[in-house]
């Protein structure tokens, strides 16, 4: 069209009175301000910002996110000021007979000596959830149990992430016979019944490690915990490896990879700088969904008595211990059960939200 689009109305061609054309003189030219209004260009956004924005709009996922943040804060802050520790048997004071009045307290009840001290006007921190059959404060045990469960979930997912990404990207990038061999191994591990193998390996590793790690800094963690991590490292990475391999296989066909190759980039550089950043959404999503499944597995194992070692609590072992006295003290079972459900449900829903936000293609 016109070279000088700012020409004024008078220069417009006259309308033939018989024509059905619109008379251009009825219109005003748009000012530059009005033109600017039509500018719909958004500010450029990054992948992360875009995804976070979408996530923010997902109310359920955000609610779950805040629940998880609240739980994490609670389990990190509470032990700092809480007056009891998870393995302290309140009825036992050195040099005195065991005070059994501390065992099996109901929520907000006190033991004998504590009652005397309260009568003398002393203020004593209440046992919010009561105590267990060894006279240990149950609230702090729940807090520590949650801490352990979350830690297991988190670190197990990290292990799975590292192994799965390395293995999957090597298989996908190299392709050919290497890929075939690596993927056969994955197929076999994938078809092992995971829960049974985990139980078996935990039994063995727990005994095998029992003697080795005594007196080492790892002993506090317990052989059960270490065997859980090892089992995860051995078995659970295959799902992640398959996903990453599939992604890499399709991405490596694209031109930018060819371009990178043609200017002489090394395989390592191509994988880390070009291929993996392009599967970041898959990595984020499946890691997020791995955490609840790890927590689930840990609680299952602890429930069978294979998880953390006594006196360290975990949510599964707390539930399992409570089962013995379920008729008299049902709250001891309900609390850890509710916490497990809350954590697993929130993490699952958050993972779904992340999937919807970061990879709309995957949405069912």
């Amino acid at each position, binding site marked *: 069209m016109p070279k000088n689009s700012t020409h004024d109305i008078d220069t417009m061609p006259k309308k033939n009175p018989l024509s059905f054309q619109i008379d251009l003189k009825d219109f005003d030219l748009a000012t530059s301000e009005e033109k600017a209004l039509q500018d719909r260009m958004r500010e450029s956004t990054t992948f992360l910002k875009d995804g976070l924005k979408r996530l923010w709009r997902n109310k359920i996922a955000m609610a779950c996110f805040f629940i998880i943040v609240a739980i994490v804060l609670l389990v990190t802050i509470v032990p700092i000021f809480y007056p009891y520790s998870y393995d302290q048997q309140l009825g036992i004071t050195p040099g005195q007979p065991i005070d059994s009045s501390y065992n099996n307290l109901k929520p907000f009840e006190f033991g004998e000596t504590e009652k005397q001290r309260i009568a003398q006007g002393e203020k004593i921190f209440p046992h919010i959830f009561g105590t267990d059959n060894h006279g240990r404060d149950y609230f702090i045990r729940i807090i520590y149990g949650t801490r352990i469960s979350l830690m297991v979930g988190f670190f197990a997912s990290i292990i799975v992430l590292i192994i799965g990404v390395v293995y999957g990207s090597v298989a996908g990038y190299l392709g050919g016979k290497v890929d075939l061999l690596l993927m056969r191994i994955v197929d*076999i591990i994938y078809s092992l019944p995971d829960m049974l193998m985990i139980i078996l*390996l935990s039994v063995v590793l727990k005994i095998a490690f029992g003697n080795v790690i005594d007196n080492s800094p790892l002993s506090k963690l317990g052989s059960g915990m270490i065997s859980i991590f090892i089992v995860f490292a051995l078995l659970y990475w295959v799902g992640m490896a398959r996903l990453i391999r599939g992604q890499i296989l399709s991405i490596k066909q694209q031109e930018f990879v060819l371009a990178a190759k043609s200017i002489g980039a090394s395989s390592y550089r191509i994988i880390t700088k070009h291929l993996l950043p392009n599967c970041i959404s898959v990595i984020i999503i499946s890691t997020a969904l791995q955490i609840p499944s790890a927590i689930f597995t840990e609680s*299952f194992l602890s429930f*069978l008595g294979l998880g953390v070692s006594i006196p360290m609590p975990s949510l599964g072992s707390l539930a399992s211990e409570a*089962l013995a006295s379920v008729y008299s003290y049902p709250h001891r079972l309900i609390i850890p059960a509710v916490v497990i459900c809350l954590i697993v*449900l929130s993490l*699952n829903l958050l993972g779904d939200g992340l999937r919807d936000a970061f990879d709309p293609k995957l949405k069912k």
Partner: protein
Amino acid sequence: MDTKLAKYILKRLILAIVTIFLIITITFFSMHAIPGGPFLSEKSPSAEVTAALEAKYGLDKPLGEQFVEYLKGVMRFDFGPSIKQRGRMVSDIIKEGFKVSMKIGAVAAAIAITIGLVFGSLAAVFHNKFLDKLIMVLSTAFVAMPSFIVATFMLLVFCVELNLLPANGDTVGGLVLPVIALSLYPMSYITRLTRSSMLDVLGQDYIRTARAKGLKPSKIIFKHALRNAVTPVITYSGPMLAYILTGSLVVEKIFAVPGLGKYFVSSITNRDYTLIMGTTIFLATLIVILMLVSDILYKIFDPRVDLS
């Protein structure tokens, strides 16, 4: 096409055999990696007694020979004698326990599939209505709950608080709760699967044609739509049975059902090595076979699936 299918089945069969062999190998060698051996308990027997015991159970032979012997035994469904339950063969214990577990498992699977299919179809038909939302909320919640949590809650509510059902799994009434506890998770999962595949199917042209020619809605849904919507459920049936088998380990412990799971859990705490090995190999093999069958069935039912 048929040669392709045959090739696929052959490939999966070989994979399954390799897997089962691997399971036996892992189980055997990890059990033998345990320091001290099976006879190391609180009151260790004297050296002569231990030697005699080891000779009796064939533990004094070289490891490779023991492995071959064990492998031969497994082929004949002979896992040797139980170490802790004197005078009983592991295979007898497995047989006896599995009878009970299989009953519970089969009923749980049947319930899960039937109710899952019905609820899933209902949710899809009433898409975005109240019923759909209710079903989705419930199924989301149940998918997040580990089976042992569901089971303990049920124990608490029905046996302790309401005193409606016996908490002991020895009687028929006592089997109601374990069955429900086991079936809830797969039921919810199948509901979700059916719903999403049903939604897909209901949007297709042939359903519109069926409507246009005036078929009854119930006939359209259950005869025309469900038939195509059911294929993902077939793929899930393998993992579902695996879940029910392993899930029954804890559920049977909680409700004191005298099934395979209870023996397995107690064999872990007792360190009854031959029983642990036997049960693991038995269950794992069963799961691998079930997965194999469900995968092959899926390919047969849905010829569109890529076999590569």
